[in-house]
């Protein structure tokens, strides 16, 4: 059975289509990169897939069950969402913040067990925040807060990860370490990852599939090696992009020569 199936999904926001009649089936081990320009609707699509907003039409199946009919807690046990921004006006410690990821797994009357705390500790170690457990989250830097949010979704330990710009605000080391970790979760444990990215080279390196949102509801989905081409990317970002073959791989860069031609 497919982990996530999308049938004829149409999503729009503020009168603009994000996707029209989009159908996709994601099986275990898929790491899907979601690419698109600013305002193309990446976040809206991710929130729709998380069941936080209703699509205009179409159906989303989570393990074969319609998402719209599932209780929120059941969804949260299987599906985790990393949001682009997080509120933190009320104080909480780093460990407390990570531990709320266990919320959907803990029975109503129970407290977090030692096992839950250990899961949170492992996640904090994964994102390099071990040692800061008792620190207030408001005392962290922007990048550290971002890693804390990632630790929270890792603590939630869902089968399906929806990550809204996981690389945003992270330094090079943490970008690579964390994306490598997510790619490994997909490859080795059969988890499904959908992540929006602005860096096409990260998508080329870590994603096995790619979904491009061109705006106005037009989409393109396929294997990353076939879909990530200079032609598609130039059209996606409306900026000339050139492939650079280097060290046995391909890197995409803005094509300065053609940029100059256009201006």
């Amino acid at each position, binding site marked *: 059975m497919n982990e996530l199936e999308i049938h004829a999904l149409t999503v729009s926001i503020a009168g603009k289509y994000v996707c029209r009649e989009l159908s996709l089936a994601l099986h275990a081990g898929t790491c899907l990169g979601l690419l698109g320009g600013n305002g193309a609707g990446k976040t809206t699509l991710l929130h729709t897939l998380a069941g936080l907003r209703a699509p205009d039409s179409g159906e989303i199946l989570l393990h074969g069950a319609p998402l719209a009919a599932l209780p*929120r807690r059941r969804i*949260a046990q299987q599906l985790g969402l990393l949001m682009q921004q997080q509120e933190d*006006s009320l*104080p909480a*410690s780093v460990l*407390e913040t990570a531990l*709320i990821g266990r919320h959907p797994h*803990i029975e109503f009357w129970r407290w977090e067990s030692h096992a839950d705390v250990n899961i949170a500790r492992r996640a904090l170690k994964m994102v390099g925040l071990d040692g800061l457990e008792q*620190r207030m989250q408001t005392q962290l830097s922007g990048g550290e807060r971002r890693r804390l949010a990632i630790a929270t979704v890792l603590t939630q330990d869902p089968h399906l990860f929806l990550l809204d710009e996981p690389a945003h605000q992270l330094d090079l080391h943490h970008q690579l370490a964390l994306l490598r970790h997510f790619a490994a979760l997909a490859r080795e444990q059969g988890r499904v990852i959908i992540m929006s990215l602005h860096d096409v080279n990260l998508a080329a390196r870590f994603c096995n599939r790619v979904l491009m949102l061109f705006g106005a509801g037009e989409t393109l989905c396929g294997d990353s090696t076939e879909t990530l081409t200079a032609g598609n990317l130039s059209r996606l970002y409306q900026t000339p992009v050139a492939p650079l073959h280097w060290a046995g791989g391909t890197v995409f860069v803005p094509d300065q020569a053609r940029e100059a031609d256009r201006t």
Partner: protein
Amino acid sequence: MQRHLQPVPLLVALAMLTIMAFFVALAVGSVHLPLRGVIEALGGGADPLTRTLVLQLRLPRAVTAFATGGLLALAGALMQVLLRNPLADPYILGVSGGAAAGALTSLLLGLAGIWVSGSAFVGALVSTLMVFALAHGRGGWTPTRLLLTGIVVAFGWGAVISLLLILSNNASLRGMLFWLMGDLSYRGSGWLPLAVVSAGLAVCLPFARHLNVLARGETLAEALGIAVRPFTIAIYIGASLFTAVAVTEAGAIGFVGLVIPHMLRLVSGSDHRTLLPGAVLLGGSLLLLADTLARTIVAPQQLPVGIVTAAIGVPIFLYLLNRARGPL
């Protein structure tokens, strides 16, 4: 690095503070009673005068003060999570304004007792429903819309209150001012607010972990499996009800609802499983001690308890805030 007190020792200490506050409140007053006499009277012994003093006069007022403080602190903690705003207090959505307008109208008409508290309760409910309906508007509830609607409605009530004060004669003005500053000298039996605060805490406590999650934002809470819409509506109704009962019993006592939750966050962290019972015990004992002071320091005159809560609470809170490292 911030060191927090462990929950169990903290709650035990607060429970002991509460018991101590009760004994002080029962022993101190126009006639000072020895501790032994108070204990005997509570057990049904002691001489008739002591018994009357303890059981009929001081205990009802002490229970009312404790329950009111507990209700305000509990409502404050809930409002701060609902609006995710550290400046939120039980009155921020205009509940006290509506209650005050109701109570002052009855005082102006020369009514007393149950009429005053009854109209205060009705005023509080009217204000709550009004804010709730107006804030939804066409866009749905968001913390900012609720907050702005509440503040504007409270401002409107403020004008009504000023008008009522201007219209009042000298005889009722003093009672009105006492009511506005918070006053526990109208003695109900106190068991109703105590029942409300106990039941309220019992209902909220199982949802304390949900509150921890909601405190991190509505979308995240939804993504972590909480049905946010019904949950936030329930918090709103609960907090408004607790506030309405507190205001009905004792007038608009400020400060307790805003500051007690913050005090606890500073000393024990922000887990609501500790915070909610801690807030009830600390808010209750603070108001109880404040009321004991209010009726004794200038005896036989009585001060409005609101003045004393501020006199005790402001320095304690500023000390804690000043000692806390880093942002709150």
